């Protein structure tokens, strides 16, 4: 072949080189790049991070402790001393909402992780082995699904008793069915690829195929669903606390604060407004981030 001489060809060859550099990025890095460009997803992520910082620095940020009562100032609206106002016992709502991040966030994430581990293992086995294994697992999941998840949680709490760990177990159990279905669907898509068969043909064991070859390829879809599930879990905690089977007073859980405030809603609307806003903002943040992740990880939307 002749040497590159004309300027147009030089330009072209430079372009090719540039493109070659672009393709040398790993798929993960590409996805990260797309995620960073997505403004709503980044907004969601920033809100989540702020929530975490608030949870860690709660004693520094909150002007009062969450049980401190001031009987001279009950049910006051927002003011300079109490920016979210006070409740019927004169507790500072801002401090309670700030401490609330220490409950909703970690519980939501722990529930999702537990649900993901149990549901993920079930879904992975169902999709990989197929046949009878799939049949049995999915029929059990169908039965669980027939019970509304909030009812299942209430029933479990009724059996296990009130408390944080009982609540976590109940919500995690309620999320298993959804997780199983998601993981199964994700793994099914990956399983039909030839490299699964080809790794079998070099003697890789079933467990190894599942962990090394199937999960990493399905992880995108699973993570997207898991992030979405965190917001679901946070909502569940709040709704359970609201109806009185979750965390009990004086725990400053957002749902519990809402529940205490509902009696005084007509005279002191700020008592339900602020905890409600906290729940809404957190859930929206997780959903935005989850959607952004989906767009970033799905190569078809490039």
């Amino acid at each position, binding site marked *: 072949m002749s040497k590159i001489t004309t300027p147009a060809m030089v330009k072209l060859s430079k372009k090719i080189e540039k493109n070659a550099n672009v*393709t*040398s990025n*790993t*798929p993960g890095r590409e996805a990260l790049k797309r995620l960073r460009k997505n403004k709503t997803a980044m907004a969601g992520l920033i809100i989540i991070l702020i929530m975490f910082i608030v949870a860690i620095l709660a004693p520094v940020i909150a002007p009062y402790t969450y049980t401190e009562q001031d009987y001279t100032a009950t049910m006051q609206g927002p003011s300079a001393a109490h920016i979210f106002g006070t409740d019927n016992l004169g507790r500072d709502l801002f401090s309670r909402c700030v401490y609330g991040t220490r409950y909703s966030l970690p519980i939501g994430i722990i529930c999702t992780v537990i649900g993901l581990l149990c549901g993920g293992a079930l879904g992975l086995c169902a999709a990989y082995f197929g*046949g009878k294994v799939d049949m049995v697992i999915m029929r059990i999941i169908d039965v669980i699904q027939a019970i509304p998840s909030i009812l299942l949680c209430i029933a479990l709490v009724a059996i296990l008793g009130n408390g944080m760990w009982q609540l976590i177990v109940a919500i995690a159990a309620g999320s298993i069915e959804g997780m199983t279905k998601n993981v199964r669907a994700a793994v099914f898509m990956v399983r039909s*690829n*030839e*490299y699964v*068969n*080809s*790794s*079998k*043909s*070099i*003697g*890789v*064991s079933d467990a190894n195929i599942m962990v*090394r*070859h199937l999960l*990493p*390829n399905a992880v995108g879809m699973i993570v997207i669903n898991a992030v979405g599930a965190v917001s679901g879990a946070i909502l569940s905690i709040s709704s359970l606390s609201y109806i009185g089977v979750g965390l009990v007073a004086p725990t400053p859980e957002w749902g519990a604060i809402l529940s205490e405030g509902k009696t005084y809603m007509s005279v002191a609307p700020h008592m339900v407004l602020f905890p409600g806003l906290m729940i809404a903002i957190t859930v929206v943040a997780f959903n935005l981030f989850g959607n952004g992740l989906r767009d970033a990880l799905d190569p078809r939307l490039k």
Partner: protein
Amino acid sequence: MSTEKKNLLEVRNLTVHYETDEGIVEAVNNVSFDIAPGEILGVVGETGAGKTTIALSIMGLLPKPPAHVISGSIKLDGEEFLPSLPEPEGPFDFAKKGPWKAEQKKLELRFREIRGKKVSMMFQDPMTALNPVLYVGDQIAEVIKIHENISAAEAEKRAGDMLEVVGIPRERYKEYPHQFSGGMKQRVVIAIALACHPDLIIADEPTTALDVTIQAQVLQLLRNLQKEYGTAIMLITHDFGVVAEICDRCMVIYAGEKVESGNLEHIFDKNMHPYTRGMFESLPNLEEDTDRLKPIKGLMPNPMDLPSYCSFAERCDVCEEICKSRNPELIEVEPGHEVACILVTEKLAAQNNAKEVK
């Protein structure tokens, strides 16, 4: 010709059916063949003829259910790899179920030991045969780690060596499959298949997804490595050009049956089965100036509904009344050359009779 040598692979009367809701698909019917050590056997046939099913049965990778091995024997180095016990009839056949399950388990464990070590398989499409999230080097190292008792660092070093063997610089160990071209991916697949120096490689249409230049390169590489390591290859293809290029012997499969087999001379110059002939006639000729290619008319019969007579009869140019009376049997017309055609059988019998009369 292969009887005096010890065979590496012996397949006898293999019959595999797929039981689906629509009916029973007779994918492979009564196929027998041998592969000697270091030999390249070409398996030719059209899509759906059962070539891949044969390959998967040897690897023990048939999807069960729906696949059922009805009968036959697959011996690799003299060791039987098909279950000897009958399948239990229904889920409540407890008497047969226990020992059958135990045997299945034992076979599966044994298969896992030999896959990659003694026999490995190359799949058709190199684009999907590699895991997109792992380094190509690590995928080669994986098979070495499984079968050889060596440290991770050593396995990685050997994986790097394998990359060089197939002509890829070792520096590209830590790259992902999407950074490789199709031909390079197929080289990596070859490297994985060869990493533990297996005795037999089953290559399922290894060049179909590649363009002609790369195809030639890959075949050349395969041929060279085969000579170097003395590996036997079962090459599944539907391209006679590929067969002519690298195979020692060739076997033609039609509708799950072996219709003709022999060495290249037998198949290319002295072919006797009308199907083999038809295939050669349908090849374009460089010297003649023709407007149209000459195809074999009709389609392969539905494997769910095979006729009780010669399955090629409906498409055969020379079909006679007798062809629709029974199934043809495979006969050896000369040493190493087998044909399954009733007309050939009859002709041969007539000749023998004439000789005896004389």
